[in-house]
């Protein structure tokens, strides 16, 4: 197991380096540069523009800029925003917990909804429960999350005169207000995930329920509840974990829109604003952090898979 994990980590390193190169290059292939953004239509001073490019080191060849960037990363320095001058490390330190909390809550919401309905839909196949569950799942997958978010806010504001507080408060500072702010975006983010997990859970349960060992359990006269809980669910959930792991980047992607709509000061909103402003260091660093997170998560999911399924052996 340890050797497997070590190999996976070693393999992740070139992946991450490749990601830094892709992101670094892509930001520079996008037409226009950050100085144009800073100047906007006031931009009639070529000398000042040259000076800014020079100050920011953007007049150097790309390989030089890339090597300098990698050197910074080696020192744990993610750089400073070109637009605001603020430290990316400091920004991310404040924003990552916000996005993580939202992602985690979204995951919990989705599983709370998806797993019971998925299981019920499978064990009551082709009944009204099954049809309702499947319709519900398809509905959640089909509704775009930004539309769902805006509709939710409009209904709450118009019909109940309530909207989440305008300012984010940390969970340790005021848990109640934090939940007031975070519950809706988490719900919206979790909705799409719950649809796909629900459908996958149903499929897996149906497959497991047709296995010989389930038939054996039934032949032995075990109660249905015991068969489902002790034998079927555990085995059907193993592939579900993989699906949930794969869906985490989808959740992170969703934060880009949802954080803006719900005014959550997380990583997604930061990334959106930085892309619009061509703020290279921020975009590079946020993408790098997200990439590392997803790579690590994939390793964790694979390892967890083995822990849950004793048939899997890592070599």
């Amino acid at each position, binding site marked *: 197991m340890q050797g497997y994990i070590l190999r996976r980590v070693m393999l992740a390193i070139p992946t991450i380096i490749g990601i830094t190169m892709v992101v670094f290059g892509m930001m520079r292939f996008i037409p226009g540069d950050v100085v144009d953004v800073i100047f906007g239509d*006031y931009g009639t001073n070529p000398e000042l523009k040259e000076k800014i490019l020079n100050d920011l080191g953007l007049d150097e060849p790309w390989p030089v800029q890339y090597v300098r960037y990698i050197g910074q990363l080696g020192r744990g320095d993610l750089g400073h925003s070109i637009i605001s*001058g603020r430290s990316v490390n400091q920004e991310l330190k404040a924003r990552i917990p916000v996005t993580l909390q939202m992602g985690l809550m979204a995951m919990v919401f989705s599983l709370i909804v998806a797993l019971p309905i998925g299981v019920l839909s499978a064990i009551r196949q082709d009944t009204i429960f099954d049809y309702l569950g499947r319709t519900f799942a398809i509905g959640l997958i089909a509704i775009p999350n930004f539309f769902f978010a805006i509709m939710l806010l409009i209904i*709450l504001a118009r019909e109940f*005169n309530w*909207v989440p507080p305008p*300012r984010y408060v940390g969970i340790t500072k005021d848990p109640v207000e934090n939940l007031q702010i975070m519950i809706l975006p988490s719900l919206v983010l979790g909705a799409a995930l719950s649809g796909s997990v629900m459908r996958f859970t149903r499929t897996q349960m149906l497959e497991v329920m047709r296995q010989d060992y389930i038939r054996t359990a039934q032949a032995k006269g075990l109660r249905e509840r015991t068969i489902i809980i002790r034998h079927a669910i555990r085995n059907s959930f193993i592939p579900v974990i993989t699906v949930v792991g794969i869906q985490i980047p989808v959740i992170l992607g969703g934060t880009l829109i949802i954080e*803006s709509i719900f*005014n959550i000061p997380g990583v997604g909103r930061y990334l959106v604003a930085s892309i619009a402003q061509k703020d290279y260091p921020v975009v590079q660093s946020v993408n790098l952090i997200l990439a590392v997170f997803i790579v690590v998560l994939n390793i964790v999911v694979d390892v967890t898979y083995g822990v849950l399924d004793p048939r899997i052996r890592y070599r």
Partner: protein
Amino acid sequence: MASEYWNRFWQRRTSRRRMLGYGATGTIGAAGLALVGCGDDDDDTGATPTSAGTTAPTNTPAPGETPTATPAETIKRGGRLRTSLTNDPPTLDPYKNLTFLAQGRAATVYSRLFKFRSGPDYAYAAYESTGDLAESHELTGDNSQLIVTLRQDIMTHPIPPVNGRQLTSDDVKVSWDRYLATSQNAGDFNFVDSVETPDDFTVVFKMGTPTATIIPLLTSPQHFWVLPKEAGIDFDPEQIMIGTGPWIFRKYDISQQLSVDRFPDWHGRGPENAPFMDGIDWFIMPEYVTRLLQFQGGNLDLTGVNANDLLDLQKDMPNVVVSGEFRALMSFLYMSGPGDQGALGPDSPFKDERVRRALSMSQDRDTITDIAYNVEKLSKAGFDAKILWNATFMPAGLGVYWVDPKSPAMGDAAAYYEYNPGEAKKLLEAADFPFDQQFPLRATQNVYGSDFDSTRDLTLGYLKDVGLDVVMEVEDYSSRYIKQTFVGNFDGLAYGYQTPFTGPEGYLTRPFTDNPANHSKILDPDLIAMIEKSATEFDREARLQIIHDIQRYASDKMYYVAGQAGANQAWVAAHPYVKNYAEYITAGYGPPTETDPYIWLDT
């Protein structure tokens, strides 16, 4: 309930001008063009005294001495105004970035030498200068020096490292040097040779060329903010703001909130002891829908509202006070011949003024404005919605500086603004316009907002209606449009916004003089002479007259075709307990200094 509201609405309207382009405090903004200088055609003020035209010391009344809309004894003090910003300020240093997000925040904490007059007796876009840090000022006989005497009661905020000390001319001088070294628009003061401070309360601006725009520029909230001399040395103005303005910087939580508290020793507090509120909280909300819903949910006290949402808002919240002022935002159709030769180049199909007039007459400005800004429906619903036409080359929102193309004041050129496709075709035929040639219409998309995009498309349609073979060519804003087309390096037609300025100078020099951003490379010696004359005319009325003459002349030649994108009212909704903002709102980025100190909350 609703009828009561609308009665009140109309009473307010007929009694005096109304509010509001509150965008300068952060609630309105569109793609970085959120400057909302606003004209006001129903202003009741006729007083336009000039501080720039004097040659003797002029006492400039303290802000607190201007009358308030509400008797002092009824003003309730305290409370915090909750409003919004459309994005994070890229920096808190007003010299480092020219966006409204940076400049508008400077107005909360910093002061200028002069500011715009505000109050019930002053129009929204009157652009009258009055003293902020300046007690008085005087021009020498040859107009080559502006001598500004500072107030002696100006205290800095009680925060280290300044600790409430007195502000002196030394602060102005140090700020000036830093401004020249760092600000992107410091070049506007090229005519100032030096700034001297003979004593603690006197600042002398020595001009190489006597220039009448010195006081308007020193008043402009896009230019010279005075920071304590410790700025950049003992504190980082990019991270915190410490100044002499009406509000003390409290905190800035990135992407969340920027807050200021009342400064009780503000030099402009007057006998009424402004500011009246304890502070202001700006919540940073990039999404329009979020701002609107937060307002509807009661978490914001006021917010900008799109014209298309006003009717729904009126239905949902009949007690909310809604009104709007015209934005000072100039869109325009411009032209250039092949090889970047400009509109008047030898091979340009647009060099004949009949062609340019025809292009203008092809445009149905009323219909374009109505479609983009929902004017007719709003009027029918009782809103004070109007259509004004931008002029060549002055936005309708620039109030006193603008000549109304619909009015006799525009003279014979008024005919070229009327929608007259038949006459437009005749003019084009008479000028032998090459109808068989295809022209691109260069413009951006999804940069300035949907209203810009729809007016652009309508403009294109009207050009086709008179026989032009025009195709849309969408350009990337930063890599192509702003670098090439906007600065006149293109062929064919283009449509875009002018940079928003809080005074007329930029609208004259940019498009008509030897400026790097002369969009159509128009260099008419007669026009240049008029512009130069306006810059050296120190009498305000005479200068206004020249500026109006320039518009008449440029409209007659129709060097640029004024567009209707931006010629709309910026609508703002406020809960009824928010008082006094209508009476004090000013155009541009200055409301935190000129308006907000006088707002009070009837809660």
